[in-house]
Structures are given as C-alpha cells and as structure tokens.
C-alpha cells in the first residue's frame, strides 16, 4: 500500500510570501502529525490531528503557521509571510490511532527554502 506522501518535495520562496505544504496520510490512519527538521533545532513537533477532535497546535512556533485537515484525510500546513528562519524540512507522519504505542509512519518531507 501507499505510504505517506508529501508535496511539493522542494519549495523555494521569497521572504514574505505565503506557502502551502500538503500531506496525504496512509488511508485509514486517524492521526496525523507535522514535524519540522532544521539544522539548529533538530526535529520538532508542530501540530497533531486526531479524528474530528480539535488539533493540538502547541508546537506551532508562531501565529504565521496554521494547519488544517479536511475530511479527516489530507492536511495542509500554511506558513504566512515566510521568514528565512522558516527554512527547514517539514515532515508529515500518520498513525492508525493517536495512542502512544502506535507507530508513526513518516513521509519524505518537503524541503522549504526561504530566500
């Protein structure tokens, strides 16, 4: 079966522009996560969706970051007014359920470069 897919694989944008990153989780997975991987900070949790529950946005670094998950499937991470420090690889993961003993399957990531 298909794994987690993300698009685009690479995105180059200019400072101040908005970007949208897409994640398609594994079919049937109810939980979806976004992480950010940057040179200085390593891998950081951003946001978590579980079914129809309100998302946990506690990891979002600023109000320029937002995410939504439509129909319990595809998710979009939006970064408004991008800054150079937003340059990173954005990883999406999904799991069957959100419980701690469920394996998270990761997508290949979107590499974002802000010039």
């Amino acid at each position, binding site marked *: 079966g298909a794994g987690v897919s993300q698009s685009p694989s690479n995105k180059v944008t200019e400072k101040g522009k908005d970007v949208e990153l897409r994640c398609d989780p594994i079919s049937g997975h109810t939980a979806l996560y976004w992480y950010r991987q940057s040179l200085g900070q*390593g891998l950081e*949790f951003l946001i978590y969706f579980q079914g129809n529950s309100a998302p946990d946005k506690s990891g979002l670094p600023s109000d320029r970051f937002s995410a939504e998950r439509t129909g319990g499937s595809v998710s979009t991470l939006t970064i408004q007014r991008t800054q150079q420090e937003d340059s990173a690889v954005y990883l999406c993961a999904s799991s069957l359920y959100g419980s701690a003993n469920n394996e998270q399957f990761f997508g290949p990531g979107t590499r974002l470069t802000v010039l």
Partner: protein
Amino acid sequence: AQSVTQPDIHITVSEGASLELRCNYSYGATPYLFWYVQSPGQGLQLLLKYFSGDTLVQGIKGFEAEFKRSQSSFNLRKPSVHWSDAAEYFCAVRGAGSYQLTFGKGTKLSVIP
C-alpha cells in the same frame, strides 16, 4: 518534560565493525522508546521500538537496542555494519499518555569501505 540526548553527533566505523549509538532520555515514568533511521533525502524509517517487557528489542536490518532503566539509556547496536547503514539515526521518546515524539539531535553514521 521529556527529552532525549544523543551525545555523538558523528560516528565513523569501518564496514564489518560493530556499532553502538548512544541514547539517553529524561522522562518521569517508563517511556515508549524508538530508533529511527533517515537516509539522505528520505523520510524517517522506524528501526525498532520498546514499550514494555523484554529490555532487549530486535529491529529491522539486524539492529537491536537495550533499554536500561537504571541508566535511562536505550542504545542501538549492530554487530557488523554494512556500507548501506550509512545514514542519520534518531532516538525518540514518547510518554505513555502522549502522542508527540520528542527526538534527539541525531547521530550521523559514516561507514568506511
């Protein structure tokens, strides 16, 4: 708050040599522990996980890890490294009531032919 320390940023080993990657965690109770591997340009792949029970866990690609509660450690081992093992390895912890993974900074493994 939970945290993970991987003290070695970069390790170089010869092909065929044994490998041990160190991981120490901080968490109030028994955590769920994971090792992931990331090859260049790829996402994270789960190597193995520890939830409970036998403290020596076997994973894919010939890797194993041992949970030592007294040392708050979960070191990854492989008896004989292959060139294809060159990658970055991440240790992660997840609390029993949590859903987010907390990762270490990673250890980059280079393999000399």
